[in-house]
């Protein structure tokens, strides 16, 4: 029985994951008004940023190479990426470990990593029409058209950032095997991730020393890199790269993060104990 559960064939059965996507979509559809709160929140955030940058660009034509239009374009694209990449994989895993419910996943013929990933896919599919499409409509009112200059590379980059965002969160969630309750750590990592990935501001606005550090961290590949791919040029810490080069580097970072996640998981899972199912 155990061998059957552990067999890779069982664990990677595509219909199972299709079912996970479908179930997550339907489950969250019931709470779509919660998701739709973004339709109030995001325009308000955008308006605040609009006024901030309008005031700043009243006295300066460019700030760190950005004009008012490119700054608003960057903000719009990075916010859309934020909606697309959002997940609570870390929180979900932590709660499963803390309550002991994770034990049920040890008995199911499914890898929790893939299960959680396809939950994210289902959840974000719903978000696509509840959050993303209406917000694109809002941006169009301000004549901001989030159309990438290199569509194929942009799609690849967005897909990679989707996976990378999940892997980072999931790895943070894995820490629950050691700490059980990780609210503080997760909150810290969320802030660090958001700031270092350029969700709030383009990373080129940071002092050059910090930019050099940010270049070697995985976070820039979650938001800053895909946003720059949308814009058609990449530059950070004085390093300029072509779009295929930076997307290639992004793919390498996804592979490294995946391996790191598996390593942390390997040691973490040995610490888990649970009673009953």
């Amino acid at each position, binding site marked *: 029985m155990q061998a059957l559960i552990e067999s890779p064939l069982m664990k990677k059965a595509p219909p199972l994951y299709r079912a996970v996507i479908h179930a997550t979509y339907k489950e969250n559809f019931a709470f779509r008004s919660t998701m739709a709160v973004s339709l109030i929140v995001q325009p308000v955030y955008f308006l605040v940023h609009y006024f901030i940058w309008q005031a*700043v660009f009243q006295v300066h034509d460019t700030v760190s190479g950005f004009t008012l239009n490119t700054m608003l374009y960057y903000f719009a694209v990075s916010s859309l990426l934020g909606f697309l990449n959002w997940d609570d994989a870390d929180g979900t895993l932590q709660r499963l470990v803390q309550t002991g419910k994770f034990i049920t996943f040890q008995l199911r013929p499914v890898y929790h990593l893939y299960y959680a990933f396809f939950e994210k896919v289902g959840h974000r599919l719903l978000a696509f029409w509840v959050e993303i499409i209406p917000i694109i409509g809002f941006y169009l009112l301000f004549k901001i058209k989030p159309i990438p200059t290199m569509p194929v590379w942009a799609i690849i980059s967005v897909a990679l950032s989707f996976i990378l965002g999940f892997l980072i969160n999931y790895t943070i969630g894995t820490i629950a095997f050691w*700490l059980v309750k990780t609210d*503080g750590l997760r909150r810290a990592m969320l802030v660090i991730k958001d*700031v270092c990935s350029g969700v709030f501001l383009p990373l080129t606005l940071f002092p050059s020393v910090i930019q050099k550090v940010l270049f070697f961290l995985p976070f820039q590949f979650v938001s800053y890199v895909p946003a720059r791919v949308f814009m058609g040029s990449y530059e950070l810490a004085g390093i300029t790269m072509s779009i295929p080069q930076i997307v290639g580097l992004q793919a390498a970072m996804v592979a490294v993060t995946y391996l790191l996640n598996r390593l942390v998981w390997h040691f973490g899972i040995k610490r888990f104990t649970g009673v009953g199912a």
Partner: protein
Amino acid sequence: MARTVDLPSPDEQKSNAGPLFQWFKIYIHGMKTAFASRMAYRGDFFMSMFIMMVVELFGPLVTLLIYHNGASFPGWERHEVLLLQGVFLLSRGIAFPFFMGMVWNTISRVQEGTYDLLLIKPRSILQMSIITAFDSEDLGKLIGGILLFIYALKSVPSLPLVNWASFLLLFIFSLITMFAFGLFMSGLGIVWIGNYRIYDIFMSVMDFGLYPRSIFNKLFQTIITWVIPISLLGSFPASALLGKQITGVLGAMLCSIFFLLVGLWFFHRMVRNYTSAGG
């Protein structure tokens, strides 16, 4: 080891000072209980508190980076904007641990069905919602606010006493506004079951208070002064402290009181709408 508490007899309770004293006493009990339960995971508590503090200091990051890149907000020096944000965070740092927890408390209890347990207590529901919601880890926000306020204040030349007096008055009004926000959100939490994103709405609207009022256009300046007095959260108190000329402050103060009264009415109206199947 079991711990016992000596509860005062009914006669002793009656002989004590007025309802405010009783309120305060119960609130202290609520604080102690909140601390004790949070200490079950003390490592996470201290980390959360530290993170709260750091997160608050990330708020002015946009300002720092704007000024670092040679840009600025027209009419405002870097330290002045930081002072404004320090005042804003100070106000939030007091509100969140001491009474804003009632929002989370209300949403969570309504969702779980344990809100009834507060309703049957021999105290007002608003009082019980606040008392059982002390958020100890949010004290990190207060520390963050104090640190930023002191840091920004260092760059400001010594200020006359009258500036401090008007600042304190407006700061009280900023807390009143915060409390009114809390009432609206808690009221919403009663009817919008389990939607913790009510906080998100509040946080996004509050973002208008984190920057000088003058950067917004006339329409938004009117809204954040006369409709939702967000200007009182940072811009007005900081301007008063810095001795800057401010217009519409009296209107904002009146609006704040009106906002509070409507908030109280809204909260109690929503409580009347609350339905459940018993605790």
